[in-house]
């Protein structure tokens, strides 16, 4: 059965040939398009080619990525806080992806949690749950040290080494011809593929175009964030930040989360909030707690952006010959997006190579990986909700401070410390965090500290 080409997307959906399902699998010579060469796209290409090689399957993989990650400054950057857990770094090493020190800076050994009632430093509970910092591009605008190498660029190099081809093009649309996706590039060029993997993140208008595609995927929900880079100088950074990442639990209306991350000569500030705007940024920077540890007046900001962050999973991130991974698909709420990219990319690649590329196959073999993440996110939402409640009550802030401080000082069982640690690093699933809060030791200690916190002289936090 043959169909005229270049028909409308909706049309072709309803008329995909019945026997098309028969060859919904990758064969020798199959062409795979990867839209977006961020972490998800590169992980996917890397695993796809590695797994294909293992079963002697020859594939042609084109990564569409308009950006050049070799460039310094914003033009080679895929904006994010750049925190990855040491456990992810180690998992990647086991996969054969050894991130060199120019790409990943290790050694952030503690967290400092700042609250109006005091600050407390939490040491990393175990070596493998330490965290590392990276830049997605070659460091911020105005960088004077040639210290950073792009994380995204490094991963892309790994994919290319495996045989993927990078095409510096923007994909502006997909047409479906005879049930096969045809990618349209920004210069009008079009080419047909056997499988399209969408790894365009959430900061891409491309994913919105897929609403009407045969896959019928709705783009994920998003919210706007703020990131900026303070150029403080290596010594200054060490003096102010130490070897620690600083997070803030402050009762500032609309502020969800804010962190300061030391990165060589820079300090990266990441902020999440409701309807984030300049007012909120200033409210945060002007807050006495923030000023106490990070007075910003003298520090030049050299780079900033306000990208979107994924707030909710794409429903049904697959279809016949199409699969969505990383931020474009399902990712972890608020953190560890890179880890989620890795997991969804690998699951999608394994499905495509070993199982097939039909919607049904993806549902059976790929969706479980996504579902695990999205159900965990549901728990994460509850935890964040509780944190928000806690954040806005001075008594509970004192309790958190007191409990954590005591744990850190007296080497007590680190109930609160590991809850906080895991929440901020993303090194454990939300479910695990939640479970640990149900631990009798946690509850008992919290209740005790809450009660203590109600007495006016309650706080005895160690100021970091």
């Amino acid at each position: 059965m043959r169909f005229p080409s270049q028909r409308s997307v909706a049309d072709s959906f309803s008329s995909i040939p019945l026997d098309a399902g028969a060859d919904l699998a990758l064969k020798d010579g199959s062409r795979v398009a990867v839209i977006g060469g961020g972490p998800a796209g590169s992980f996917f290409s890397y695993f796809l080619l590695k797994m294909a090689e293992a079963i002697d399957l020859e594939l042609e993989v084109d990564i569409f990525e308009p950006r050049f990650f070799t460039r310094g400054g914003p033009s080679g950057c895929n904006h994010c806080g750049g925190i990855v857990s040491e456990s992810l770094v180690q998992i990647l090493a086991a996969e054969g992806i050894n991130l060199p020190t120019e790409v990943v800076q290790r050694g952030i050994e503690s967290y400092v949690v700042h609250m109006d009632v005091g600050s407390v430093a939490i040491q990393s509970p175990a070596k493998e749950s330490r965290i590392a910092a990276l830049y997605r591009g070659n460091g911020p605008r105005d960088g004077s040290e040639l210290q950073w190498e792009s994380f995204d660029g490094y991963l892309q190099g790994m994919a290319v080494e495996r045989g993927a081809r990078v095409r510096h093009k923007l994909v502006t649309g997909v047409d479906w011809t005879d049930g096969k996706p045809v990618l349209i590039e920004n210069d009008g060029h079009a080419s047909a593929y056997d499988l399209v993997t969408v790894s365009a993140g959430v900061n891409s208008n491309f994913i919105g175009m897929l609403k009407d595609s045969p896959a019928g995927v709705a783009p994920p929900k998003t919210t706007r964030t703020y990131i900026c880079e303070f150029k403080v100088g290596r010594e200054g950074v060490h003096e102010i930040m130490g070897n620690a990442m600083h997070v803030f639990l402050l009762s500032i209306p609309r502020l969800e989360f804010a962190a300061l991350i030391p990165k060589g000569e820079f300090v990266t500030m990441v902020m999440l909030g409701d309807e984030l705007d300049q007012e909120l940024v200033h409210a945060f920077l002007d807050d006495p707690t923030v000023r106490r540890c990070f007075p910003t007046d003298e520090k030049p900001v050299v780079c900033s952006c306000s990208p979107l962050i994924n707030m909710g999973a794409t429903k049904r991130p697959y279809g016949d010959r199409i699969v969505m991974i990383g931020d474009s698909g399902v990712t972890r709420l608020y953190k560890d997006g890179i880890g989620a990219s890795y997991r969804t990319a690998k699951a999608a690649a394994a499905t495509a190579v070993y199982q097939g590329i039909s919607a049904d196959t993806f549902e059976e073999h790929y969706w479980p990986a996504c579902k695990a993440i999205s159900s965990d996110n549901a728990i994460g939402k509850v935890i964040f909700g509780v944190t928000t409640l806690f954040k806005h009550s001075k008594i509970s802030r004192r309790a958190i401070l007191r409990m954590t401080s005591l744990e850190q000082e007296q080497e007590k069982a680190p109930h609160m410390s590991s809850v906080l640690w895991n929440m901020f690093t993303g090194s454990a699933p939300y479910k695990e965090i939640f479970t640990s809060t149900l631990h009798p030791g946690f509850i008992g200690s919290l209740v005790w500290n809450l009660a203590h916190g109600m007495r006016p002289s309650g706080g005895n936090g160690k100021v970091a």
Partner: protein
Amino acid sequence: MSDATSPEAGGLGNDERRLTPAYRPSQVEKQAPCQAGCPNCGDIRGWIGTVAQRDKLGLTKEEAYERAWRMITDVNPFPSVLGRVCPHPCETHCNRAEHDEPLAINAMERFLGDWAIEADIPLPTIDGEAGPEWVGVVGAGPSGLSFAYQMARRGYRVTVYEGREKAGGMLRFGIPDYRLPPAVLDAEIEKIERLGVEIELETAVGRDVSLQELKQRHAALYLGIGAQAGRGLGVPGEDGPGVWTGTEFLSLVNCGEPVDPGTRVAVIGGGNTAIDAARAARRLGAEVTILYRRSRTEMPAIEHEIDDALEEGVELVLLASPVRLERQPNGDLATLIAQRMELGEPDDSGRRRPVPIPDSELELPVSAVIAAVSQAPDIRGFEDLDQDGGWFLTGNGGAVGDGVWAGGDALGLGIAGMAIVQGRHAAEALHARFRGLAPPEAPENGKRLVGADEIIMEFHETRPPALPERLSPEERLAAPMAEVSGRITEEQFLAETSRCFSCGSCFGCSQCEMFCTSGCFTKLEEVGPGIYFTLTLEQCQECGKCVEVCPCGFLEVN
């Protein structure tokens, strides 16, 4: 431009306390350096872009050529002429010089001018603007003709009064044929005449008709009388046979009159007239020496014309000035006695003043001496008008008296491009006055000049410019009238247009579209040089990628 805090803008917006600029783009067309360098303020980038971007604009080659030619002729009816003789300050300012070589703008202009002559394209008119006024022009040089063109294309009736037997001024009687073939000049003047401009030849004002009569006849007058009177040397022995001024000599040569300077010619001066006179004399078979009283860097002549003269065997004696001419008993010239000079303090013109060195005379055997030291206007018949030491003095946008305007060399020696722009400005001002319109504004008013540091030069591969074929010095002397410099080929022309950086104006490279995956930039259906994308800031991440990758300096941080 959308307001920073407007709801349709994405990101966090701007306020005074913002830590960085919101790296939010705006599309701001800027002035290109070529245009800033051009006295005529021509939209050089625009016409080059029209050809370079023809595929994106959906134009055939011919459509693009015609459109580009119309853009040039909007300000200058002589592209073929200026494409040959203009010293092209535009190229001196071209940013591409910092990458490899400046664009060959002049050669491209000539290509288009010649193409339009061969394709017989009429000059563009501006409809529906004219009134009943009848304007008069004195002098059919480039300045007067530029004025006449700008009035006639708006529909005014124009009569030009020219003292000589042919129109063209110094372009015809000064610049020799080997640089500007008369047929080219004729063709471009003819296009102006086709707009209805009447040229009354051999009608000198002050001789055949008085200024007073013309003032009565016309609603306004434009004087483009040039600086026809060559100055003498003012040294003993100057009066007598064998001595010409540069303009006299060139006029004779250019008119094909018999002129015999003998075998040893000395040309005094360092300007274009001196160089042209020397090269013309050389073509008549003489040994030619140019004497100039300062050093080569001070020579006002077009640099490469000096090189051409030297190639052709003209001798250059710098830092020397004639003191007297000695004659044979029969009155013929025998020897030029000159004095060596050295450079002293800078004078008013900023050039260092030549100072005689005592007892340093040198002797040069001569059969003829051509004094190309300076020219001045012949203002007989115009004495009542505003003037300063024999040059017209304009105030008030080009007027030298009630209803009388002036421009070109009569205001001070310049280049043809300058004469043309003054004619145009006078016409625009006069038209505005006739029609009660606001005085015209310069097209680039308010636009910031784009800096070389705003251009990403690496975006473009280095590539040598288009060079025309040129006759060898031997060929030139063997065929004295033959044009020295050829026309670049069509292939060269097209390749050359694509070397343009399009400084400060969008050329549709799509870098912003590519790097902004959020989709703030949308390609327009109808595009043109400078307009390829609409910008909506709804999805803006304020990251500044687009500004950073824009190779032409069109995008800037808002």
